[in-house]
């Protein structure tokens, strides 16, 4: 049953690697947005350390949002999506594969890049570890929930802006626990509880969101 998931992941990864500019531009968007904040609010290390978790996480949300409209759009345009919907496999599993592939090319690089940017904000080593961990744990949920939004706005005019209107309010819990984990580490409370909740959100999102997104795709393809 999970053969289809693996197949979709492999296919989407291959497609993504042939268009590396998309991945790289989302990453640089992340870097630039994060670097703008010290320029806007001033270089005091204390202030930056306090703001770092929130700034990095908000930038990560926006960077994930950036690549979401393309999650289904290309397949929709050339008709692949309809063939996938006609396939004997449940559409939810296909969507799960696409969501995982999206995370591998958007969420994972963000997590790898985040500690470097965290250094600019003078975060301690502990906080950097938790920051990387929280982004690793939280971004799959972002890809999953974002998949619903991408499916709902498939083929609509103004899809990108609309997508952010739909999805950003639903991202709030992930933002709170993700940034909260780093914040709790910085203040010495320990980020364990936040990370557990973040993992719970990710499990729930990966379990349920692909099916909701599949239902939305069926509505869009009707």
């Amino acid at each position: 049953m999970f053969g289809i998931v693996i197949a979709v992941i492999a296919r989407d990864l291959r497609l993504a690697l042939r268009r590396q500019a998309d991945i790289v531009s989302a990453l640089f968007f992340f870097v630039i947005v994060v670097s703008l904040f010290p320029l806007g609010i001033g270089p005091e290390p204390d202030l930056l350390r306090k703001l770092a978790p929130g700034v990095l996480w908000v930038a990560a949300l926006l960077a994930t949002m950036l690549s979401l409209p393309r999650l289904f759009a290309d397949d929709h345009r050339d008709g692949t999506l309809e063939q996938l919907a006609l396939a004997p496999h449940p559409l939810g599993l296909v969507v799960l594969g696409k969501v995982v592939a999206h995370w591998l090319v958007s969420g994972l690089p963000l997590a790898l890049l985040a500690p470097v940017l965290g250094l600019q904000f003078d975060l301690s080593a502990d906080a950097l570890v938790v920051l990387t961990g929280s982004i690793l744990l939280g971004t799959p949920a972002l890809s999953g929930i974002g998949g619903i939004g991408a499916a709902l706005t498939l083929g609509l005019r103004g899809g990108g802006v609309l997508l952010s209107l739909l999805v950003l309010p639903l991202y709030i819990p992930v933002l709170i626990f993700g940034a909260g984990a780093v914040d709790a580490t910085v203040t010495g409370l320990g980020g364990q509880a936040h990370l557990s909740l973040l993992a719970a959100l990710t499990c729930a999102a990966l379990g349920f969101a692909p099916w909701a997104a599949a239902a939305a795709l069926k509505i869009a393809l009707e």
Partner: protein
Amino acid sequence: MNDRFNLYRFAAPAVFYPLAGRLVPWFAGLAAIFGLAGLALGMLVAPTDFQQGEGYRIIFIHVPASWMSMFIYLVMAFWAAIGLAFNTRLSGMMAQALAPTGALMAFLSLWTGALWGKPMWGAWWVWDARLTSELILLFLYIGYLALTAAIDDPRRADKAGGLLLLVGVVNVPIIYFSVKWWNTLHQGASVSLTRSPSMASVMLWGMLLMALCFWMYTIAVALLRVRTILLERERHTDWVKAELTGETR
């Protein structure tokens, strides 16, 4: 089948349209009566609060608006579930008809909250859990309105909007609790919205009457709106043509 009164008959647009038309004046009238009674109780009879003075009286708008904003979202989600499960056309129209009023209530709740907060806490806005979740509820309404407005095909708009409502209603408790924990973890005990337990019963009655007024108003407005949506969507049918040209059938 049988001749008994059949509720499902009203799911047919041609039957529901005149029924809604007959119901609107009743609900509007009830809203006016409850509203007048509630305002009279709230503004004239209810005593001045010994801590907050006269300013507390905005509660008679604020609390009912907050209640309705949450309740309307649930009702919309209910209609969305019915619409997706039974594929009924009217359900999606009901959800769409309710949405602007729900957004209005959420906005009203935030606005009156700000007006109330300034004299009482000295701030237009605090990042309290309830205020924040009300704001997010407003965002959810706006997302729904934007999505349904962006889709040209009304059937797809109904279904996509319905799905969004269901996703939203699953997320609302998650969002509420995360905001609550965020709030307690971030800033400790700031301004508490929990009121003193002893609320004069006159105030409570005034508030309940105002809540009933808002409820009836919502029904009246939603029925009016659903009638316009019905006319627009069913414009190719004979009954709408008969309705608009004033012919009797």
